[in-house]
């Protein structure tokens, strides 16, 4: 036995330890090691669980981050939708504005068309009335003017016969010949118009036929004096009332028809253009 095997303190060697104690120590060590293993396993499990929790937290975090990003995208989309809505409203407003403008334009165009039509009627009527020096043709133009332009279906044209002091019919359309006769000055609406030079128009109930109250009596004037009249007995079916151009045509009739008749009559009496110009210089 070496010195090393000898306990310095005079204690016992390992081999001197009783078996029970050895077993007890071994059991303790085993128990200690077992607990160490268990503790290690516990730590490892907890670590694993913590890792799992950490993963979950990370996942949740990622999800939340993604949701935030998605919310931002939605907010962006909502802003885009709002902007597009505003643009749509602006476009709709513009479209409505354009529709209104187009309707106004069409209305204005229709008005211009009507005015051009009216002007053409007036021009043609005036041109034809003064473009003829034949009494027959002037009367024919008068008939066309009243019938075709004004839209009278039945009418009578009169002139004043100064010598006889009466009003005599010179043309008529769609009025029974038996109902067309000479009148005294002042007799009935036509006689009154030939005396006063005042126009008479029935504005309402224009399709009522009543010779004592004709739908229109237009005096024909020359130099401001009545020389005849047009009595409108009945209007065409499709004519529902007086248009603005009718009033213009009546003005034209009143102011020009009498003069055109006088000019044509004098021209024919003079036997032509040169005869009609005879003695003209002495009147200047």
């Amino acid at each position, binding site marked *: 036995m070496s010195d090393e095997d000898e306990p310095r303190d005079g204690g016992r060697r390992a081999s001197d330890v009783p078996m029970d104690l050895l077993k007890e120590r071994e059991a303790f060590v085993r128990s200690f090691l077992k607990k160490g293993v268990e503790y290690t396993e516990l730590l490892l499990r907890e670590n694993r669980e913590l890792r799992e929790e950490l993963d979950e937290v990370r996942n949740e975090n990622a999800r939340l981050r993604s949701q935030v990003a998605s919310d931002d995208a939605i907010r962006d989309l909502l802003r885009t939708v709002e902007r597009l809505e505003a643009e749509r409203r602006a476009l709709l407003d513009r479209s409505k504005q354009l529709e209104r403008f187009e309707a106004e334009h069409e209305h204005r165009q229709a008005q211009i068309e009507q005015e051009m*039509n009216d002007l*053409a009627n007036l021009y043609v009527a005036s*041109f034809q009335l003064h473009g003829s020096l034949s009494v027959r043709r002037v009367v024919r133009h008068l008939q*066309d003017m009243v019938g075709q332009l004004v839209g009278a279906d039945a009418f009578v044209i009169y002139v004043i016969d100064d010598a006889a002091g009466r009003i005599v019919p010179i043309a008529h359309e769609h009025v029974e010949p038996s109902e067309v006769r000479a009148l005294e000055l002042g007799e009935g609406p036509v006689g009154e118009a030939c005396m006063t030079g005042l126009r008479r128009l029935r504005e309402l109930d224009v399709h009522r036929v009543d010779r004592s109250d004709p739908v229109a009596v237009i005096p024909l004037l020359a130099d401001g004096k009545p020389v005849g009249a047009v009595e409108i007995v009945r209007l065409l*079916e499709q004519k529902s009332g007086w248009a603005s151009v009718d009033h213009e045509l009546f003005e034209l009739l009143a102011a020009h028809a009498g003069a055109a008749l006088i000019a044509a009559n004098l021209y024919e009496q003079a036997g032509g253009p040169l005869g009609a110009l005879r003695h003209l210089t002495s009147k200047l």
Partner: protein
Amino acid sequence: MAELSCLVVEDSPMMRQLLVFALARIKRLHVTEAEDGVDGLRKLAQGKYDLIITDINMPIMDGLKLVKRIRSDEAHKDVPIIIITTEGSQEDRQRAMALGATAYITKPIQAPQVIAKVKELLSIE
């Protein structure tokens, strides 16, 4: 685009002038005037027309006889014809349509109405 031609047959100078005024607003439409049915036939014999507008009531040869003559003529049997009538003369209108008239316009004539009808029949935009 080729020129189109129209014959206006109307005895009233006033109405004729009004029709010519209205038709003058259609581009490339050349208008020839005739004073009555006989004059209309004379003008038709001298040339070809893409459209004929005629009044019904005319001296010498009225619009109905003219429509009949035009339709019996091989050279003009397919030319569209517009007749001018009054609203009340439905019989004349029906007779004219039966004889071969294509369309009608009622008096008092309105330029926009005439222009629209002519454009429709000549397929003008």
